[in-house]
Structure formats: structure tokens, C-alpha cells
């Protein structure tokens, strides 16, 4: 630790004004602040502050995603790690370049985006597509809006939608990998589309349209085909609960999305005379759980007011069902969350007016 401090001090002049690498100062600063907590003091009241900072907040999301990542590696093999690595590397480069261009600090937000993005991709997707997707998502979804905190859309979703529209075959049909069935899974296997024996197997939602139903236990445990992080309901719920308990994610959004999703599914189930799988099965299949816990709860792109949050959550829950059953797409969470992101500012404005009307009678 002392050595680290000393070596940081040694290279510091290079990054400071007049130094050779002055332009890359944000990179130095980020490295230093990663290893050593800041020493800045509160200059104005209050004279002490809560220990939570953005680094910790973002780290909590990463910790919450660890069970999901672990099970993904188990089911789909070590290639998952390669996908995550590519996503972090390319996303990180974009973030650093923009921090340098904007002369701002490197923001921790990309640590979350860089991990969320690979988890919503099919496991067999070519690595160069992962790179293109994350670059597009971070660049267009976030940096062009001004960086973390100022973006309108969830950057990971922007990247995924870009890929889905540009390479529909690779994103839907060609890249699903059949999950490992028996212990020890693919923990020691680099399973790509070329090497795995059962290359493609439709996702549960796709198969259900053909009348094949995955059983509920597989959906819960996760040994079904699907995006890297969406298959195991168990891991998602475990991580998601951690986010809610630690107050990082808004419980209103999660309850709202899942509640409205279940209600609408139940209505449709009864209206269609039970010809579609029931609400519980629908909840476990596809990306609704992952979307509700990890994507919709992004504080930046969801509404700020609690009234707005409820409305936003219902929009996502209901439109996911509608897209799943009434359009050509088998999965609708992605578009539903994007729809919610679009509506968020409007919902906030409406909730705000209500709040102001209440406050007007006070004070």
C-alpha cells in the first residue's frame, strides 16, 4: 500500500499541468481515487457527511449482479467472462476518452453499464458485436447527453436495441446456447457457437409460441436458453432484493413493474381462455425479472418523483405484456423500459404539479 502510494506520487507530475500526460489527468485521478478515499473536506455546513458515495452506490449494483454472473458462467461457460471483459474494455475506453474531452472526472457509472450490457446479450454473440454495441450504447446513450446523471435512456438498453436492429439474426436466432445441464456446468469450458454441440435452442418464450413449455423449476434455476443474465430467476431475485434492502433501487419501481405485469398477464390469461402460459410462468421466463430489478430501477433514467415512479413502473409492466403477446416480438421488456424512459420526464412533470398543488396550501 505504501509502495502504491509512492509510485502514484512518482508519476503524478507527469499528469499535472505541464506534464507529458496532462491530458490524461482524469485517468490518473480515477486510479488514485480508486485506491485511496478522497481527503476533501466539507467547507460549508453540514460539517460531516454520510459515508455513502457514488463509488459505493455503484459497487452495490455490481455486488448484486455477482450471483447472476456466477450462474451465467456455470450455464454458458467461460466465454461469458470474455464478453464482460470486452464490454468493460471498450465501454471504459469510450468513457475515458469523453472524460478527457470534457475535462471532467471519470464517472463510476460505466462500471455498472459495462456489466449490465453483456448480461442482456445472447451468450453466443460474436465479441466484435459486443464491442460495437457497448461503444454505441455508452457513446449515444450516455456521453452525448453529457455523461452519467444526464442521460435520458438506459445506455445498456440503447446498445442492445442498436444490436437487435442491426444484426437481428445474430441477436435472436444464431446466438442462443443451450445451457449446461449437469454439474459442473461449463465452468471450465469456453463455449462458443462453434464449439457447443447444441448450438441453438429457442428461448422459453420463443418455444412457448411453438407450444413447448419449459418447466417452472428450470426457469427458477436458470438452465434454459436466453440472454446471459436473464435465465436464473433465483439469482436475479437474490441480487435484486439486496438492491432494494440497501435502498439502492426503488422498491416502488420493482413492485410496480412486477405487480402490473402479473395483473395484466392474469387478465390476458383469463381473456384468452388459458391458451397462453400463466402469469407465474411468464414472470419467470424472459427478461422481465432482470429488467424490473436491474434495468428499470436505474435512478437516472427513471422518474424522480414517487408518483412518477409508480406510473412509469405500470407503463413498463403493462407494455411488456402487450408486446409479448400482441406483436411479432416474443420479448418486450427492452422496448417497454425504453418507452418508460421516454415517458419519465413527462410523468415527473405531472407528479410535480400535483405535489406543488399540495404544497401551495402549506407554509
Amino acid at each position: 500500500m505504501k509502495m502504491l502510494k509512492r509510485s502514484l506520487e512518482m508519476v503524478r507530475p507527469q499528469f499535472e499541468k505541464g506534464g507529458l500526460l496532462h491530458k490524461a489527468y482524469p485517468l490518473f485521478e480515477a486510479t488514485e481515487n480508486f485506491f485511496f478515499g478522497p481527503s476533501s473536506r466539507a467547507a460549508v455546513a453540514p460539517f460531516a457527511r454520510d459515508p455513502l458515495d457514488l463509488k459505493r452506490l455503484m459497487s452495490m449494483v455490481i455486488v448484486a449482479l455477482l450471483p447472476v454472473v456466477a450462474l451465467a458462467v456455470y450455464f454458458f461457460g467461460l466465454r461469458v467472462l470474455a464478453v464482460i471483459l470486452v464490454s468493460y474494455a471498450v465501454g471504459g475506453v469510450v468513457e475515458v476518452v469523453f472524460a478527457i474531452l470534457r475535462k471532467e472526472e471519470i464517472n463510476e457509472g460505466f462500471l455498472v453499464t459495462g456489466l449490465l450490457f453483456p448480461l442482456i446479450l445472447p451468450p453466443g454473440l460474436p465479441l466484435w458485436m459486443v464491442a460495437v454495441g457497448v461503444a454505441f450504447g455508452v457513446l449515444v446513450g450516455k456521453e452525448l447527453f453529457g455523461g452519467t446523471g444526464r442521460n435520458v435512456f438506459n445506455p445498456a438498453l440503447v446498445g442492445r436495441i442498436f444490436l437487435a436492429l442491426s444484426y437481428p439474426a445474430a441477436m435472436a436466432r444464431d446466438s442462443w446456447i443451450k445451457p449446461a445441464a449437469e454439474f459442473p456446468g461449463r465452468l471450465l469450458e469456453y463455449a462458443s457457437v462453434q464449439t457447443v454441440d447444441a448450438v441453438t435452442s429457442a428461448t422459453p418464450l420463443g418455444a412457448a409460441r411453438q407450444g413447448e413449455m419449459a418447466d417452472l423449476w428450470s426457469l427458477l434455476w436458470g438452465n434454459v436458453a436466453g440472454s446471459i443474465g436473464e435465465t436464473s430467476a433465483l439469482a436475479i431475485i437474490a441480487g435484486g432484493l439486496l438492491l432494494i434492502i440497501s435502498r439502492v433501487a426503488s422498491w416502488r419501481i420493482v413492485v410496480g413493474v412486477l405487480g402490473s405485469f402479473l395483473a395484466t398477464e392474469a387478465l390476458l390469461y383469463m381473456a384468452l381462455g388459458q391458451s397462453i402460459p400463466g402469469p407465474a410462468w411468464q414472470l419467470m421466463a424472459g427478461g422481465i425479472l432482470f429488467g424490473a430489478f436491474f434495468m428499470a430501477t436505474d435512478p437516472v433514467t427513471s422518474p424522480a418523483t414517487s408518483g412518477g415512479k409508480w406510473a412509469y413502473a405500470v407503463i413498463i409492466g403493462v407494455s411488456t405484456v402487450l408486446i409479448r403477446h400482441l406483436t411479432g416480438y416474443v420479448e418486450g421488456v427492452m422496448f417497454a423500459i425504453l418507452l418508460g424512459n421516454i415517458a419519465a420526464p413527462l410523468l415527473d412533470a405531472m407528479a410535480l404539479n400535483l405535489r406543488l398543488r399540495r404544497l401551495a396550501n402549506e407554509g
Partner: protein
Amino acid sequence: MKFRGGYSIAMAGCPAAEVEVAAMPRRLLLPLRTPTLYFSQLHVTDGQHVARGQVLARDAALHGVPLLAPCSGMVEIEALPGHLVLTSLHRCGIDDRHGLASDEPALAVDEPLHISREYGSSGMLRYKLLSLGAWQYMRDSLSGLVAAPFDVPQAVIVSVLNTEPFVARGDVQLSVDTPLAAKPGGVHHNMLTHFTRGLEHLQSLLEYQPIYLVLPKGSSQLGEQVREAVRGYAFIKTVEIPQKYPLDNFAVLARALGLKLRGQAAVWGLRTEGVLAVDRALTVAQPVDRRLVAIGGPAVLEPRHVSLLPGYPLRELLKGRVDESRGPVRIISGGLLTGRAVGQWPLQGQDSEVGLDSETSGLTLVYEQKEREFLSFMRPGGDRRSYSRCFLSALRRPPPEGLTTGLRGERRACVTCGYCEELCPSGLMPHMIHKLLFQQELEEAARLRLDLCISCGLCSYVCPSKIELAEEFRRAREAFEEEQRAEQELKAGEAAE
């Protein structure tokens, strides 16, 4: 009563209930500026001998609130910038453990005819309070400034709570048996009598306006004893509130009581020391000279309450009380969240000679942030008390934290986590106001009721992006008020033409 937000910060160094009487200093340094007063009008000359209770200066802009001599002595005007220095102090009342009231002659207060003619007997009582320095405690709940003495308020709120860490608490003020002697172990019967008599005096200032007495919710010795003491007082309405910062703020209380503050008669607010001061002034015609000051915070060796005279030199007061082992210590006059920094221990240069002003009810001492912690954000944080539950401390309740002045994070853009909104006692949305102010939309921010902000500081405290919300809002409010004033003047000017 319905409250929003609020949060109690668990900081180490809560002052014990015991009261220590500070030794008589060699000289008193009376600041001419306090957080809300400026004694600009001097009533003494250099070298003049003054008696205890004599007017030294007045705040000409604020109802002529006087600065009284806490003790007889000789005035030095030029000795210290911004202060009146009192030397050759007479050892008044320091060794006198039997109370001041009986031994000392009542101060004669002149009775201006026009006041009694204009405002009647209640006006005379108020004038007496003003002259004896007791009116200083009566606050307008909207502005936090000293209330206008001859107004008719719509209600008076009396609070025995003081939730900010750390200022002198009501239960301690009621536990001393005279203003001088310490007596730990619950509310003292004697003081309780003073308190209830103060409330009676308070009622004689009013016509039919209610007095709300604010007590802590749940069973507490303080609550029970005070409730018992005021039983049968029809003019007092007791209300119970949770002991959460800053729910004892008068503006918050007034709103929770459904009292309108804007465009209506004022709501006055008074704390325990104020009621005791009223009693002292109107029962025995004595000025309030001693103050109870809480000295607390992680950097205090023995956190406790100290009884002292205003103008007590800070250096003498803190000598031997500060833990110097962890480097410099920030001295905050008042509480952690709303106080102001008055210097750094060890005191040096300009700060080295300052006196406690007559409004100080607490000194909070916090270590300055020095060390950079290795991999700070990855630590489990079993000892870090946070509003969020992102640390191990969420699983077990660790003891109050030894806070430092560190920001504990880098400044970042707002991510709309919503913590500020959850804690705001005024029901505002600080994150939204912040974004509007960032875009220079002052009018829009005012539409979000920036005027309801009470500057409690919780939003700044909890913000994970370390944005100085409270400071930003304070500045914006000033700018907006300035703008409105200019507008009104312009209109008035046009009307005159």
C-alpha cells in the same frame, strides 16, 4: 401531526447530562456579531466601568435588541476587532451557589410612557423582556430572527427539544437546580417551577393565542415530568413529536400544526432557555447572564454541558477538552448541520482570540479529515452509519460514529437517487431544485417552493454525489429575495411617478 423526512445523525461525543460551571475568565470577549444579530450601536465608551446588566450596545436594525454586560467590569472597545472586551471583572455570582435571584437587587427598568400607552400592560412586559435580554430568545418561526416585540402573534410554540447534534438540550437545562450548580439525575423540581412560571408569564403577554408545548413522543422522564407540571394549564396545548432532527424546527412545527406563516400574523418560537429567561426577567427582574452550552462531538475528551457567561474566550473554554491526538480539530459554533466554523484547534492567528456570542448554545468539535483510506469504498463499513443500507452497519447497530469533516466521496453529477427528497422535512424535491438552479432557472426553482427550505442541511449531508445542496439553496433564496425586493422597489418607484 404529520411530519415528513427527518433523520437523526448518530455522531459520537453526545454531551452528558452533567453540567460543569466554567471558571471565571480573566476577561470576556463579547462578539458584536452573532449568527442573527449585529450590535452596531454602541452605548458605552472606551474605559467605561459598567454594571452587570447594563446595555453595552444594541442591534439598531432589529428592534434594538441589547447586548448586556454579563458581569460588571471595564469596557475596552478597541482591544479586539469585532468584540467588546470586558476586563477587571467583578466576581459576580460565581461562587454563589444559592441562586442569584434572592441575593441580588432587581434591576430597575425604566418604563417609557408611550409604550404603556400604546400597548398596555402586555406591552410593558414585553419591553421589560427586551431590556433584560430575554426577548432575544423569542424567535419568528419563519425567519428564525428575533421576533418583533410589539406584534400580535397567532400562536407561540415552546419546545423543550433540541435535536441537532450538539446543542444544549432542554432536559439538561431543566436538570440544573440553579443556573449555577450542576445536578445530574433528572429534571429538577426547582427548575420545573421556574419553567411553568415562565409559561404563565408568557401567557400574560398574549390575549387568547394558543401556546403549543412540544414534548418528545414516547415515554421519557422529561416528557412525563413536564406534562405533569403543566396539567391544568388550559392555555397550553401539549403536542408530542418524534425525536428526529430537525422536526423541532419552529417552521416545521408550525406547518405540522397547520399554522400558516406567509401573509399571516407571526408564529413565535421559544425553547427551554427562553422560557427560563422570561421567568427570570419577569419574576425577579434579573437579566439572563449565564448560558448553558453543550460541548460535544467526536473530538471532545469529556462531552458535557458547561454553564458560562457570554463572551467566554473560546481558547480558555476548550483548553484541556480537545482530543489533539488525531491532528487538527474543526470548531463549530452551534450544531453539526447548521452551525458555523469558528476556527481550528489548536487556535492560531486571527481565530485565536474569539469569544462565545450570546446565541451560542453548543460547540461541536470534529476531527479534520486527514488520512486517505486505502480502498475506502470497498470496505465492509461495519462502523459507518449511513442513511442507505450499503454498509455492514445496516446489519448491526454500531455505536455512534466518530465523524470527521471529510466529504467521503468525490463530487459527481446528481443521479436522482432521491435520498434528499426522502429526508427533506419541508417536503421539497432538492434534486429537482438543484437541476433547475444548475440551469440558472431561479424562477422555476422558486415555483418548486424553495422558500419552504429551512436550511436544515440534511440534503447536503446525505447526498452520495456530495453536492452542496443546502448552501446552493441558501444562496438562491437570497438571490431570489434580492430580485423580488428590487422588483418591488421598481414598482414603488413607478407608482410614485
